[in-house]
């Protein structure tokens, strides 16, 4: 800026400085008034906007990155993080084309969308597992049952269940310190639904963080800790955490305690702590060819899903989802809303037919 000022007298300099600023300010205002019809720039395809869950973000980001590489010269789709709920708020106001969700759309959100006249196609894109982790020094927690998790995390447990032997008598009489995802996250919603039996209900006296690395940090530095984490964070921190296999007491999906791995999540034996992740595509946006191509990449580029730490769906599910998208099958398979535990995607999608 200094170069713009003549170096004779101070008043003159101030004058020019102010004049410059005023002119620019006017220019900004003029551009503001004229610049309302954003993104559509002569002939180029309109920007694809994606927003929503932070859990689904890495997948959408990877797909957007590849889409950008495949289409040099056009604007790469943008991806925001505002949480599953925040994403649906924007989506149901027509502000975004695609909404990422780590849980199915809720009844209230379905209502908001239909009031605004926003129709959408619900597409599963990947699985995520929620791992139960303890410190590597922990020698006793070699498996845990879903009921024990329920006892440990129930709202009634607050201030009462504070020692390991209160969960299982054979475990030591020592403090237990709990870590988990923040209460605004889809991970927390799903975990509480699966263990306590009610979405969003849990004890409050645990260390919660929206940043899962904080949970990794906490569990890896405390011998008495137990926490839950998305599988991707476990994969990246294998040497700092020990994973506890979970037993759901249902022999139909595998006997005994089961470790969360890509395979057990994918074949449905790691239950109930594996969940599907979704994208919701607005029907209006789905008319645009570039959006169609973008959505197709979610189905065809399964390698991306593995790369970012999630588990791809089975080919049959991708085929079903592709069919739904092509037919513009609007609405949600989860009409009663909320997380559904233990139901396979095949069953859900078939039920929708």
């Amino acid at each position: 800026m200094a170069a713009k000022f003549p170096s004779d007298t101070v008043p003159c300099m101030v004058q020019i400085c102010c004049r410059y600023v005023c002119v620019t300010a006017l220019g900004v205002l003029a551009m503001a008034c004229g610049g309302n019809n954003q993104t559509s720039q002569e002939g180029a395809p309109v920007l694809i906007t994606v927003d929503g869950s932070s859990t689904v973000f890495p997948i959408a980001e990877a797909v957007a990155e590849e889409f950008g590489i495949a289409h040099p010269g056009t604007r790469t789709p943008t991806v925001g993080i505002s949480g599953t709920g925040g994403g649906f708020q924007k989506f149901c106001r027509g502000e975004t084309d695609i909404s990422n969700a780590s849980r199915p759309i809720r009844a209230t959100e379905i209502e908001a969308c239909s009031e605004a006249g926003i129709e959408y196609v619900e597409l599963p894109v990947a699985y995520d597992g929620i791992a139960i982790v303890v410190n590597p020094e922990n020698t006793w927690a070699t498996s845990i049952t879903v009921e024990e998790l329920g006892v440990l995390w129930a709202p009634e447990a607050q201030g009462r269940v504070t020692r390991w032997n209160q969960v299982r008598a054979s475990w030591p009489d020592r403090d237990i310190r709990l870590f988990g995802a923040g209460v605004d996250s889809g991970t927390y919603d799903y975990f509480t639904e699966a263990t306590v039996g009610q979405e969003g209900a849990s004890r409050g006296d645990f260390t919660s963080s929206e940043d899962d690395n904080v949970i990794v940090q906490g569990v890896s530095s405390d011998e008495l800790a137990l926490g839950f984490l998305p599988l991707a964070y476990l994969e990246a921190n294998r040497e700092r955490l020990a994973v506890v296999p979970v037993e759901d007491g249902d022999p139909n999906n595998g006997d005994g305690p089961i470790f969360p791995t890509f395979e057990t999540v994918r074949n449905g034996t790691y239950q109930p702590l594996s969940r599907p992740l979704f994208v919701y595509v607005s029907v209006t946006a789905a008319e645009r060819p570039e959006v169609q191509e973008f959505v197709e990449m979610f189905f065809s580029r399964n390698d991306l899903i593995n790369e970012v730490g999630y588990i791809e769906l089975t080919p049959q599910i991708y085929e079903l989802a592709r069919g739904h998208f092509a037919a513009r099958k609007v609405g949600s398979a989860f009409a009663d809303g909320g997380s559904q535990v233990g139901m396979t995607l095949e069953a859900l999608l078939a039920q929708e037919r």
Partner: protein
Amino acid sequence: MNAIARRRCVDLLFQALALLILCVALGSLVVLIADIWSDGAARLSWDFITGFPSRFAERAGIWHALTGSIFIMVVTGVLAVPLGVASAIYLEEYGGRSLLSRIIEINITNLAAVPSIIYGLLGLGLFVRTMGMGRSVLAGASTLALLVLPVIILSTREALRAVPPSIREGSLALGATKWQTVWFQVLPVAVPGILTGMILALSRAIGETAPLISIGALTFVAFAPDGLSSPFTVLPIQIFNWVSRPQVAFQANAAAGILVLLALLLTMNGVAIWLRDRYQKKLT
């Protein structure tokens, strides 16, 4: 020991204590920077600075966020500085002590302490939705301009107040009008102080994340903002995103991003100090 010696001793002790506190403050800053440097320096490269976001830590760059931050900063300054300085001139030189100007004054002081997230929500309602700016550079900069406006007004008023009354009186006595006095006498003397306030305000704005997240600044934007209506992201948002990733390699990216942000801040402050010194010399 006589009284004087004892007082000297106390004096010396206090001096030592003050020095110690200064060392602790500076020391922790040095340790922090050294820690970030050791984590991130290896990632700093031309490719990193000019690169775009990626799911691979080693391929990811920061150009989109750097240009976003600079663009937002420039537009924020252009919007907030003229408004802020003009308001301060009115309040200080013309407003007098009327009830109205006192109410305004109290409100501005209060606004300076309002949490930034509140400005973000205001920006979301006013700029993004009511005025239909969308999640654009302009909406982000307008929100930040509101956020820093009280700081600019307050510091400009301080600077104007520090101008000796004799300068105003002299000018008026020579027959200058009030406006001429303000424009040709008072403002030039106050410029260094105004610049300091401006740079403090913009430095605050460049580190803000909460208001920008609440107006809907994005996380993955693989292009540099190219206009006022362009979507954008800024350095603190990109850094936060990298920190919260599972892969350890992204932590190095975050550290390198922090170094870039620090360098940008230091450059801004450096330019401000240089400008201030230039103007101060001119006056004497």
